[in-house]
């Protein structure tokens, strides 16, 4: 293992959690761990990073002020040519999925995405990743030529280290001439004011609800127990509930006292947004639904049969 580069992911002045997850995962592989920070005016981030890596390489400049794959890719490719690492880790995130595959092609490097576990073996890195929304796991052999690994968010534990990584200022050279893309702005998706992150009891609905006409029953149930309605991505995509109540890695992360998942399969992207809830109760027709791996309590049954009966029992308990 000749060393691992970990691309620091940051946005609006804050290092994103996945960075520390990747650094912890990289340290487990053995070999030198080098955090790579591209940014503008990010000096305040250096101490947090140098305690988690053997080295922090920092290239500062206006070209890196906002994430954009072109300057990041060019700089990273140059650094890889200098350092010759065994692997380059980027997050499997909005930034990383935009950068990882084109970086791998530019480096002519093997690529594996959405990695949830990896370890060194004789032939290279053995990397585990999910398929079919988590119903299957695939193990891939990835040669360390270097390997580009896009790391799943909220999958590795960000175990803290107390290293004293050397901070190296590095000149990435020209990363902007001939650019074909340009970052313009960040916009907040407009909301209607519902904040599901503050609710104590949340009812999450998923594809198992099947049709919009089944929604009123669920809404009434939520009202019965003073719960806020949230949803997995497919329900929001279908337009049944607004984006601001989407729970998951591209939506909100919530930690309610009680989370009731109705007709939610438990795909990792959704689970990442609710696994911190105190009590998770899942209702799903499929006994093998991944949601049961994270739920505290489960019912295998048709939610359309369960909910009307449940409402009745709740009314009885209240009276």
């Amino acid at each position, binding site marked *: 293992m000749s060393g691992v580069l970990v691309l620091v992911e940051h946005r609006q002045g804050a290092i994103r959690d996945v960075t520390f997850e990747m650094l912890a995962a990289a340290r487990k592989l053995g070999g030198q761990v080098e955090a790579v920070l591209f940014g503008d005016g990010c000096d305040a981030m250096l101490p947090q990073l140098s305690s988690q890596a053997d080295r922090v390489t920092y290239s500062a400049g206006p070209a890196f002020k906002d994430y954009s794959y072109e300057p990041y890719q060019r700089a990273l490719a140059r650094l890889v040519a200098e350092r010759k690492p065994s692997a380059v880790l980027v997050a499997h995130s909005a930034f990383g999925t935009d950068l990882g595959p084109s970086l791998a092609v530019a480096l002519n490097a*093997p690529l594996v995405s959405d990695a949830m576990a990896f370890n060194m073996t004789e032939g290279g890195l053995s990397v585990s990743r999910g398929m079919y929304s988590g119903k299957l796991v695939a193990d891939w052999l990835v040669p360390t030529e270097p390997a580009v690994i896009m790391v799943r968010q909220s999958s590795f534990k960000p175990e803290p280290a107390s290293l004293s990584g050397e901070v190296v200022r590095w000149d990435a050279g020209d990363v902007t001439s001939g650019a074909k*893309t340009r970052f313009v702005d960040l916009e907040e998706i407009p909301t209607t004011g519902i904040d599901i992150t503050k609710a104590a009891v949340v009812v999450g609905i998923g594809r198992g609800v099947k049709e919009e006409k089944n929604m009123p029953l669920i809404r009434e149930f939520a009202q019965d127990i003073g719960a806020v309605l949230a949803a997995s991505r497919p329900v929001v995509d279908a*337009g049944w509930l607004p984006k601001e109540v989407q729970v998951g890695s591209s939506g909100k992360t919530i930690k309610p006292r009680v989370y009731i998942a109705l007709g939610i399969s438990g795909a990792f992207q959704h689970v990442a947004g609710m696994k911190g809830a105190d009590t998770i109760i899942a209702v799903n027709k499929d006994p093998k639904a991944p949601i049961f791996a994270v739920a505290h309590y489960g019912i295998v049954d048709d939610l359309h049969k369960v909910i009307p009966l449940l409402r009745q029992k709740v009314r009885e308990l209240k009276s």
Partner: protein
Amino acid sequence: MEIAVCLKRVPDTAEAEVKVDPTGRDIVKDKLAFTINEADNYALEEALLAKEKHNANVTLVSVGPKQAEEVLRMGMAKGATAAVRIDDADLSGSDSIALARVLAAWFKGRSFDVIFTGAIATDDGNSQVGPALAELLGRPHAAYVTKLDIQPDKLVVRRELEGGFLEVKELKRPAVITIQTGGNTPRYASIMGIKRAGAKTIDNAGSASLGLRPEAVGRAGSKTKLLKVYVPEVASAAQMLEGSTDEKAAKLAGLLKEKGAV
């Protein structure tokens, strides 16, 4: 304006049990229904909206077996103008970059103003083909786009970021855009559309016609090799509530009261 959309035919496993096949490297597919990859359906809709707005031609491309033509015909029924299927008989074991190389071989020398792909496929969940294809073609790309504006000299896109943000970017044309679900409302094909599409020709291509040597495709042409697939143990820490539906509902009500939700 010429627009292309890469479509993938995937098994519909949302409500089906997934079983590993005897090779240990794939799942049993003979009892599964197949469908167009969800994000690709949104990509197709984006292309059709551009067709209406800019009077563009829309060409569909799919790498797959003969049955992949179902997905291409459905796309033509919705309004796409042409379709090509790249046969995958010798592509078994391809990783996503190897697949992108096959697509790049077809796209090379063809000028499309925009190439759309879906941001992610529901079978492998790789999310790699679009940006890899762009890099192979020397074109700029943007991944996980939900809103797109095609202007004469550039594309303006909005990409979804975690936490409720959109990243606004400009790209020079021609470009490759990967489309995330939810940004538009995919249309249904009309009966007339389906009838007309049934009569259309779908072009065929393959590794040989694309000038790709056997060692450059499939498992041989992939730097990453699939070792095995397996169904993860649902480490069910969950306490399952048992009994009739009525009994389970009663237990759940009691549980909710215990947890302070009633």
